[in-house]
């Protein structure tokens, strides 16, 4: 907190107030110490050549609470309680050239302040922001960073030590899917398998590998995966929902069903963060577009579909044009937040009493390349 020019402020008392009302009082210049309490929405605004930013909005109104600054080509991770946030990004000495560092910044959300940072091996994937490229273990001990040189590996950061534990080779695989408990994770591989890893004697080792659960040549899976109870739900380019159980660290398929069989119009999933699961509503939501074609898998949505994973049925569809990423908050009355082509984040109330309908209840402007968002209590 800084008190400016006391001299001037005092002088105001001597001013000549021959007015009907008293003059406005002098003010103090302060720095707000912490954000207002309440649930938050985090949007990562990626930059391709300067600082990317994590923007924090109040989840109820989308009023802005502040930002946390990262570097370029970044990924964001928000810990489930919403108290700590992470960004992994690239810093160059001359912004576009010169000595390069890959850095994991660790922020205190309440004060929007970087608490510490970990210098990473200079191998992190300088990718678009995706949910499963920066993750942490369920026990909170490790942060996992997806690398690409372009050979694939995962940097494992020991959070309590604040250092890099190791770089784990994961050739041909992509994405990090933490186990529900403990320190393990899965990754998705180009031969259609999933492999799991867990720590043993201070190093991460391979635990198990599924047989091929999908064929990337026939119908690829998106790498954004959602935990649905004891399973991960993955969505395929052509509209399947593929469930993978990772109980005990041993991944295995627990079923596949189609969202689009028997549906007219050539509907298919598409976008970036294009799937979300609400444990409260027990529904999986997916961004869908019609007249799909080879290469349309990142097209923005035309509709949002609600899927009951238990009954394997699409139980609701609603217009949702122009959105490429979205998420759903937790709680008794979850809200839905989407990022649209119009460079806005929009808040919706969700009504699933009869099918699916959305009511817009807020919006805020975005900047940069916003692909990733997270809602916290």
């Amino acid at each position, binding site marked *: 907190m*800084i008190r*400016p*020019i006391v001299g001037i402020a005092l002088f105001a008392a001597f*001013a000549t107030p021959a*007015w009907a009302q008293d003059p406005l009082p002098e003010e103090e210049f302060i720095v*707000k110490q912490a954000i207002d309490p309440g649930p938050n929405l985090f949007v990562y605004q990626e930059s391709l050549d300067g600082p990317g930013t994590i923007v924090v909005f109040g989840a109820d109104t989308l009023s*802005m609470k502040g*930002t946390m600054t990262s570097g370029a080509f970044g990924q964001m991770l928000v810990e489930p309680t919403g108290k700590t946030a992470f960004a992994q990004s690239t810093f160059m000495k001359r912004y576009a050239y010169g000595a390069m560092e890959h850095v994991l910044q660790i922020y205190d959300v309440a004060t*929007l302040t970087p608490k510490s940072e970990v210098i990473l091996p200079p191998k992190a994937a300088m990718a678009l922001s995706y949910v499963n490229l920066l993750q942490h273990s369920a026990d909170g001990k490790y942060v996992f960073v997806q690398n690409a040189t372009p050979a694939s590996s995962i940097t494992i950061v020991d959070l309590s030590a604040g250092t890099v534990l190791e770089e784990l080779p994961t050739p041909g695989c992509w994405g990090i899917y933490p186990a529900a408990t403990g320190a393990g994770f899965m990754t998705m591989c180009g031969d259609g398998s999933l492999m799991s890893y867990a720590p043993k004697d201070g190093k991460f080792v391979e635990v198990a590998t599924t047989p091929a659960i999908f064929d990337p040549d026939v119908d690829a899976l998106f790498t954004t995966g959602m935990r649905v109870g004891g399973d991960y739900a993955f969505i395929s380019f052509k509209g399947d929902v593929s469930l993978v159980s990772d109980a005990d660290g041993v991944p295995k398929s627990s079923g596949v069903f189609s969202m689009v069989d028997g549906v007219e119009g050539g509907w298919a999933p598409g976008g970036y963060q294009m799937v979300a699961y609400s444990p409260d509503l027990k529904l999986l939501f997916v961004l869908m577009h019609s007249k799909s074609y080879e290469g349309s898998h990142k097209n923005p949505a035309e509709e949002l579909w609600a899927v009951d994973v238990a009954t394997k049925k699409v139980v609701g569809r609603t217009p949702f044009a122009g959105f490429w990423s979205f998420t759903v908050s937790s709680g008794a009355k979850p809200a839905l937040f989407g990022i649209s082509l119009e460079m806005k984040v929009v808040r919706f109330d969700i009504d699933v009493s009869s099918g699916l309908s959305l009511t817009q209840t807020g919006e805020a*402007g975005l900047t940069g390349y916003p692909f990733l968002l997270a809602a916290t209590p």
Partner: protein
Amino acid sequence: MIGFLDALLARLDRMTETGARRVAQTSGRRSFLAKAGTMILGGVFLPMLPFDKSFANSGGGGVATGSDPLACDYWRYCALDGTLCTQCGGAINACPPGSQGSSVTWVGTCRNPDDGRDYLVSYNDCCGKSICSNASFCNFNEGERPGYRMAVFNDINWCMANTSVGYHCTVAVLVGLAE
């Protein structure tokens, strides 16, 4: 406007034991500003920054006489050039959490349409974060002058004297009457 500069100088006078203005009058404004330049490290002055597309979209120009601190034309922003902290998690007199308040600032003199009085406004930059591009970029220049009058120059990053010089946004703090 001439009144504004006179008022500014009068107020700055009170801040120095020797009377900066008398010095200024006898040895030239340069000396005054050199003195002020030292002085402000603990105090007044302010932050200013260029306009951009959000300014461009506004069409440029105009006068700040409004009553909404979330809007560019709020009366206190009559000489503000930058993004609004009120839209970035701060407040009219508060930097957003996690930013640094600028240690040097510029002052403007703006008329409050509600009471007809002219107030001295300190425009402090908030520093150490990337620019808050989610907010409106606003640009008004009442009383603004080139850098040879540094105390009233707004085309410069007033995070200049902070440990982190990144520019985030700008507040408009009332520091008294200008009369």
